[in-house]
């Protein structure tokens, strides 16, 4: 983990709130999320469906569509506030300084345009023009993400690639302008394990070689643990626990993080009942007062009717009235 106190962080998210104003009520998909990320740092943003992890990613890029909007908070990136930025200014950053990779490459690539053409458009949008320049850059990034015979593949359409290769193309497009920050939203969830391992290896190398910061959004603790320097666990729109990945997973303070870890079959004796979190994730339309996890939490009591504050202890943060104790390292 680099990026000491002396240098300003690359990305600073402060008290971000993204709400959806629906007919049924206000859905607070993201509600008071703060974190910072330095150059070359990898953060895993973990949560189950509806936890707000993807909306957080979309919010950073100004990609939240009505009825949703950023209700409050600040997103400072390279010294500029993205929230108050005009759409035209944001467009200049998006795809250039900040890029995003989505879960399903089959729906993010245009099916009727060759990938060479799609890459050329992405390059021209940010001022890289000329047949030779765009072609050379496209071949370079495709080769970088492990697509064999890249020059010839420029003329291929997305359907001519396998799922894993398509995701590599999507990653290559994100890398075209050497972004300072890459946001990857469940990029390997739709892929087979053997292909996932290839993409993870590729990601690790990219971060190491290019010094790019990465936000890896996932529900999978194992992939996050093998990739991320730090982790933020989200539940019902809030970060409930954050800190250095290994420390948090080894010794979680929040009962929800503990519950997620206990739910993994890999950590239990075969055939034994898994320790399960009872109930299901709450509807964001009718969140309980106080801690949203309280109705499912084994440690909840009357105190949990009041929203717990985010407590910072050295490198770690948690939002719980009754945090699990820290085990003393031996």
């Amino acid at each position: 983990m680099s990026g000491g106190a002396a240098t300003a962080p690359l990305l600073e998210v402060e008290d971000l709130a993204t709400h959806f104003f629906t007919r049924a009520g206000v859905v607070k998909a993201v509600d008071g999320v703060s974190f910072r990320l330095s150059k070359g740092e990898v953060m895993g943003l973990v949560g189950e469906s509806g936890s707000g992890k993807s909306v957080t990613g979309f919010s950073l890029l100004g990609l939240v569509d009505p009825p949703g909007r950023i209700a409050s908070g600040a997103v400072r990136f390279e010294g500029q506030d993205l929230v108050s930025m005009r759409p035209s200014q944001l467009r200049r950053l998006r795809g250039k300084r900040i890029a995003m990779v989505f879960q399903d490459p089959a729906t993010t690539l245009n099916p009727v345009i060759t990938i060479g053409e799609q890459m050329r458009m992405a390059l021209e949008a940010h001022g890289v023009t000329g047949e030779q320049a765009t072609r050379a850059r496209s071949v370079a990034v495709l080769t970088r993400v492990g697509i064999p015979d890249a020059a010839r593949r420029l003329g291929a359409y997305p359907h001519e690639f396998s799922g894993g290769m398509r995701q590599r193309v999507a990653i290559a497009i994100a890398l075209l302008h050497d972004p300072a920050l890459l946001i990857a939203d469940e990029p390997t969830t739709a892929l087979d394990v053997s292909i996932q391992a290839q993409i993870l290896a590729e990601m690790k190398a990219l971060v190491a070689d290019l010094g790019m910061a990465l936000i890896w959004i996932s529900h999978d603790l194992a992939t996050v643990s093998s990739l991320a320097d730090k982790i933020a666990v989200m539940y019902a729109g809030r970060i409930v626990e954050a800190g250095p990945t290994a420390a948090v997973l080894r010794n979680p303070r929040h009962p929800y993080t503990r519950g997620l870890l206990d739910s993994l079959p890999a950590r239990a004796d075969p055939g034994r009942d898994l320790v399960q979190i009872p109930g299901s994730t709450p509807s964001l339309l009718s969140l309980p007062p106080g801690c949203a996890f309280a109705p499912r939490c084994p440690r909840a009591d009357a105190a949990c009717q009041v929203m717990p504050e985010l407590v910072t202890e050295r490198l770690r943060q948690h939002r719980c009235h009754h945090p699990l104790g820290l085990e003393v390292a031996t």
Partner: protein
Amino acid sequence: MTDAFLNIENVSRRFAPRVSFGDRIAAKLGQKVDTRITHAVDGVSLTVAKGEALGLVGESGCGKSTLGRVVAGILAPSAGATSVAGEPVMSGGHKTTTRVQMIFQDPYASLDPRMQVGDTIAEGPLAHGLTTKAQARDYVGKWLTTVGLDPAFASRYPHQFSGGQRQRIAIARALAMQPDMLVCDEPVASLDVSIQAQIINLFLKLRRELNLTMLFISHDLGVVRHLCDRVAIMYLGRIVELGETQAVYAAPQHPYTQALLDSVPKLVLDDGVTTSFKPIAGELPSPLSPPAGCHFHLRCPLAAERCREERPLLREVGTARLSACHFAPFAPA
């Protein structure tokens, strides 16, 4: 095994592309028309004992779901046959037994959105005389209780339930047919981690209480390790390894199994440990034109001349352990 309860005998399933009239004319005129046949399942034989859970593991396109559908009697095999307790699952292209029931991956797609879930659950049992109209309500309530739901939910519609609850309803529907055998096709793949654990626990409970025999299809090696007594690894339509789950995971006897296990990301709990991934080279070849010899040889670190030409047969390489690799058995690492 002599006490085979489910018997899958040399089952193959091929899919031929639909060749239209226009295509046929084009072919006559010398155009290239793709008439290649997909061998989704290629001569698979497996047995499952009463009360046993067999995991079927493989990557997308390996044919595991097709095999599951053949076992459940949803899809007729192109060759071979399956039987449960000596009774054929299908004859003349139709399912002839209710002893096998199936649970699907997506509980959003597998329940009729316009039917009350109670009616969905009762439909099969009523048609097969397992209950009567008068008793249907209690009958449905009993199975809803078994899967951990309130019997009062019977009058609700699928959209009123969460993903985990829907999967419970789909399980109740299968159980209401009083099967001896369940075919589960990725039943927890589309569920959140915390909900996945609940459904895994439900399967463990059902196995204990109902002595169900299970064919559990999954790409998730962790889930299979937890739920299944034995595991079969499938690659491009063929079984490449079969054995007791613990033993297979501890010392795989096929390079593909080894590669799959290496690909699974592990939870890293130590600071500063840099995990290195050992991804399998290349990708799953198209099942339209599988490589000759051993299907895995293009990606296999051990591949030799023999692997390119000679198809390795699934053979015994240890106690209750089969492998389809020329070089097996391997010494445990």
